[in-house]
């Protein structure tokens, strides 16, 4: 595959040979981050929130999510896997999580630390946080889905103060796993910590260190690639050691509503799918949801099981995880077991809003630009066809004003005036 790992900060990549310039991804991108140029989809990376919608939607499979190749684990002597709970939902007829975890050991990992354990701890830490901070502006918005956090940082600045001041489960377990290994006497430079991710948003968050002082993992693998390695090995395992340490509370974070249910509060709302997420954020901004205490939002349909790095349909995976949950205890991990202050579970650095849509730093200049954009927009056919290479006539008007596009790129203008 071409151009796969050459861009250090890029979130999604393009297989140019497959891209037909069909505008599907561009039209559906939630941050208008895609333009079609010279017949190929290009990404304005400063706007990209790594949600993976374009990867999911591309009819030609030309959009590729970025993640690390499995070979990266060989760079380290002591390899720790952090499997996302959605991994467990990928296997048909699986009745014991331990089979997956023993499989991970078989394919080369020395230690497994399940991300769902961190989720359990976070559920408890969040309950504590909410109970001791009653004056927070409501509703509090979950910060577990990094695509949602990024969306707020680029598009919903006024909701920045609603974001739950908590790390993601993977951040917690990455730190704990590394500490445990060091305590065992393993030399820090030998330790490699790898998240097995269901989505490109987690890859992006971990690479850029969302909410943390410095990145907490050494690599991010995809559920699909690990699945392909596990599949032939799992039926051949000779012995299944009891490695899993998760309860229902942690496992249920894999699907939408699971995190909120773990807070034991009544006034919560859980929405999933990027369009519903945008709807909810708009409603919160308009003051329509002030009677809700907690809002869980997941960019993918169904929650993390819907991430584009998974194999299985989100609803099938959700049903399988529900079956696995039934066999488990409620909780296997409590804050008391680990003796960490609540601050251990909180953001180390507050994510900063991004000014990607502001027309100009100088407001007077921005207003002049906006006037010109309005003038250009009025001349456009208002069909939002995307043939110019911009997702909407309004976005095209902005592109023309900024010099990113030329008005002649609107191919339906003549048509429009003839029929008007």
């Amino acid at each position, binding site marked *: 595959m071409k151009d796969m790992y050459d861009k250090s900060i890029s979130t999604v990549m393009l297989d140019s040979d497959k891209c037909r310039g069909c505008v599907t991804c561009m039209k559906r991108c939630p941050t208008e981050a895609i333009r079609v140029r010279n017949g190929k989809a290009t990404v304005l990376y400063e706007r990209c929130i790594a949600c993976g919608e374009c990867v999911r939607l591309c009819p030609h499979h030309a959009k590729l999510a970025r993640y690390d190749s499995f070979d990266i684990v060989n760079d380290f002597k002591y390899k720790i896997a952090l499997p996302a709970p959605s991994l467990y939902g990928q296997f048909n007829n699986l009745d014991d999580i331990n089979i997956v975890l023993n499989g991970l050991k078989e394919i080369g990992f020395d230690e497994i630390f399940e991300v769902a354990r961190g989720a359990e701890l976070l559920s408890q830490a969040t309950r504590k946080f909410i109970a001791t901070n009653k004056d927070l502006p409501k509703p509090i918005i979950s910060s577990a889905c990094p695509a949602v956090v990024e969306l707020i940082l680029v598009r919903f600045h*006024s909701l920045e103060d609603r974001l739950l001041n908590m790390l993601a489960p993977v951040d917690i377990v990455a730190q704990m796993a590394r500490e445990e290994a060091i305590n065992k006497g393993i030399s820090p430079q030998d330790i490699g910590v790898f998240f097995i991710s269901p989505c490109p948003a987690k890859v992006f968050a971990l690479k850029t260190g969302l909410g943390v002082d410095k990145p907490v993992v050494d690599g991010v693998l995809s559920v699909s690639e690990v699945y392909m390695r596990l599949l032939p090995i799992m039926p051949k395992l000779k012995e299944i050691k009891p490695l899993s340490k998760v309860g229902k509370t942690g496992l249920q974070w894999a699907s939408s509503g699971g995190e909120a249910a773990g807070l034991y509060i009544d006034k919560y709302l859980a929405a999933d799918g990027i369009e519903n997420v945008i709807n909810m954020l708009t409603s919160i901004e308009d003051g329509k949801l002030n009677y809700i205490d907690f809002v869980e939002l997941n960019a993918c349909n169904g929650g993390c099981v819907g991430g584009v790095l998974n194999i299985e349909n989100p609803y099938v995976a959700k049903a399988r995880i529900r079956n696995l949950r039934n066999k488990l205890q409620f909780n296997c991990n409590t804050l008391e077991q680990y003796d960490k202050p609540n601050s251990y579970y909180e953001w180390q650095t507050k994510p900063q809003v991004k000014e990607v849509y502001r027309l100009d730093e100088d407001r007077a200049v*921005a207003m002049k630009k906006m006037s010109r954009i309005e003038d250009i927009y009025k001349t456009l056919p208002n069909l939002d066809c995307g043939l110019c290479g911009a997702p909407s006539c309004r976005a095209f008007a902005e592109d023309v004003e900024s010099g990113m596009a030329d008005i002649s790129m609107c191919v339906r203008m003549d048509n429009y005036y003839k029929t008007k």
Partner: protein
Amino acid sequence: MNDALHLEFTVEGNNFLSAGSASDEVKNTLKKLGIKAQAVRRVAIAMYEGEINMVIHAGGGNAYVDMFADHIKIVLADTGKGIEDIQLAMQAGYSTAPEDILALGFGAGMGLPNMIKYSDRFDIQSTIGEGTTITMEIDFDQR
């Protein structure tokens, strides 16, 4: 007036699907102008409440929005039935919304109080049988 950015919207009456689209567009424009998040939020709430009021009570109307360097002026004009007792309508919790509207979760009687709360200057003119015009101004940089 020269430097003002003028936007106009038609708000459709009794259409809950499109309700809020005018305030949404104003909100997005303000974000692109780099207006501070807190001011954007106040505009969003005040204008949304006004827009919903026109949808519920007045059979729709027009929104005229002027953005200046330091503030926004929003005029919401309808030709609906007008407000009988403005003082009463401005009290928190007072509502004349019909049953079917209440069933939709609207009509909590916070429309006008919220518009007053979130705007810096507020004016309401209403004549029975002729309609209501609300003018709100919100400063971008104070508070």
